[in-house]
């Protein structure tokens, strides 16, 4: 940095983008959330908090709880699948193959999330590939689609790279001589994993978990496409308020409640996150 003036000039484009595309829409939504739905689905500005009180209704709290459950399950499965993957990529796989393998992890991003979710529909539906295979083997078809398991599956599939990449970064950085030291001091491989590898890669675990948990909390596409008619999550609920019920103020209030939950989470994990940043 040279002078304060130059720094401000360089930051100006970013500031403008944030202001126009984040702060202003948030303010519009905040204002809307404090209003009331008009008969034609527009916003009546009468400054009250009724929408927030309505969001605290047990009916909606249950939806929020379901979403927290989905996010927790997605994070847990991503961690269970992603840690061994990242471990193998970062510590075991031959070094010269590493970048190629990392590209494979990111490769799904080249296709739109929507298209990938439809691919799961084709795989899982009653006449889908999986059931066709089961029938060909003389086994009965299963109801794989339109339930919570399908939602978690789609969500885990979609978020897995966001778990693997930060885990890979911290595992690759891990000093191997520390693992040798642990073995030398009498730690069997599994104990070395618990006592050395996991504690030292905690920043990666925290970063990956937040990167998976937060988008999963407000997930919309996977619940909408893979979930059943009666499985409502916060994401689908908000979409419903804006598009179907045309209750913009309540939809806005719900999304602010969601943001609040995320903010609380970020505050709770700020210390390990800062460690992850270093």
């Amino acid at each position, binding site marked *: 940095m040279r002078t304060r003036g130059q720094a401000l000039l360089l930051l100006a484009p970013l500031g403008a983008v944030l202001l126009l595309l984040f702060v202003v829409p948030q303010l519009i939504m905040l204002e809307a959330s404090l209003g009331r739905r008009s008969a034609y689905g527009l916003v009546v500005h009468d400054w009250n908090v009724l929408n927030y009180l309505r969001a605290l209704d047990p009916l909606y709290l249950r939806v929020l709880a379901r979403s927290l459950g989905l996010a927790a399950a997605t994070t847990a499965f991503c961690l269970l699948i992603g840690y061994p993957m990242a471990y193998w990529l970062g510590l075991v796989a031959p070094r010269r193959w590493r970048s190629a393998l990392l590209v494979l992890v990111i490769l799904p991003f080249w296709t739109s999330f929507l298209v990938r979710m439809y691919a799961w529909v084709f795989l899982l539906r009653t006449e889908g590939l999986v059931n066709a295979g089961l029938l060909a083997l003389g086994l009965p078809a299963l109801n794989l689609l339109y339930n919570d398991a399908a939602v978690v599956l789609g969500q885990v599939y979609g978020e897995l790279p966001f778990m693997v990449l930060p885990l890979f970064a911290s595992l690759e950085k891990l000093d191997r001589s520390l693992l*040798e*030291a*642990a*073995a*030398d*001091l009498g*730690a069997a*491989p599994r104990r070395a994993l618990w*006592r050395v590898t996991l504690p030292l890669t905690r920043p990666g675990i925290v970063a990956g978990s937040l990167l998976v948990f937060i988008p999963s909390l407000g997930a919309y596409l996977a619940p909408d496409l893979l979930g059943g008619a009666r499985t409502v999550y916060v994401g689908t609920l908000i979409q419903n308020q804006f598009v179907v019920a045309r209750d913009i103020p309540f939809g806005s209030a719900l999304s602010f409640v969601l943001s609040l939950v995320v903010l609380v989470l970020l505050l709770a994990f700020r210390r390990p996150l800062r460690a992850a940043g270093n």
Partner: protein
Amino acid sequence: MRGDVSLQGLRKAFGDVEAVRDVTLEVRSGEFLTLLGPSGCGKTTLLRLVAGFETPDAGAVLISGRDYTGEPPHRRPVNTVFQHYALFPHRDVAGNVAFGLEMAKVPRREVKERVARALEQVRLPGLGGRRVDQLSGGQRQRVALARALVLEPDVLLLDEPLAALDLKLRQEMRIELKNLQEGLGRTFVFVTHDQDEALIMSDRIAVMNQGRVEQVGPPEELYERPRTRFVADFLAVRNVLQATVLAVAAGRVSLRTRGGAALAAADDGQWREGAEVWVGLRPETLQIAVEGAAAGELRGTIEDEVYLGDRTEWLVRVGEELLTVSQAARRGPALRRGSQVSVVVAPESVLRLDDPQAPA
């Protein structure tokens, strides 16, 4: 016996590179044995074979009389002090030293006592609560030592532990390590490329070259009677010459160096007439004189003079050979660049060197 190590016919290759080729070596219980050699000679690989970080392609590793070949490191009664210490950054000093005891499920109270004792042993009492990144290089080295010694291993393995320290600290640690080892009476296997370090600390030195042990013996023996060209070169026998044995008679060996100088050596029964050999002459066993040639003297010209405080070194051109002569500091006026001098070689000081690496 507890604390001895027997390496039998060990081989280890990485791809096309043979790091260790057929090493057989006995380490005696309670001795300080140094593996000495240049980088890439296989000394660290050999140490890692003992620790269990590598498995040999052939051969066996016996520790305290038991065969540990193929056993993983965590089941071996040895501990290692790593070159860059490998201290756990997520644990404080006491946590690092306690790690092995926790793995061995030692009761908490005993862990505390033993950690405190180990830190005292390495002269770091009261530093248990310190974070690892708050320590100096020398302190880290001591913590690494305490962490390994607290487990009372049969054999302690040290992989160039002093290499990362500055010169003064390194010199202090040499003495301290040696004293510690003598006090404990434990077997230390120490890897270094530094010949001074090896000479000062070791009970015995094994000089390694290209994956083989070329010579094993106490420091005095290696220094005074290096057997191979490589060992001589590594232990500062500065004049290594190729020569032909002209005659062996009456306890005397006549040699002619490739550069044309005539030498006489004492016969120990190993010289063969007509053989091509390598001979070594330590600079400090050579005498320099102004007066003219008698038997066993080489005529030459001084090409350069290097004053080193406690001694002076002269580079003397004898025919085509350039000899280094070292003598206690005495700068005579007659010894200048260009002076005609004679170099006196005592026959007993001529070392016959083998060259096992050369094609037969």
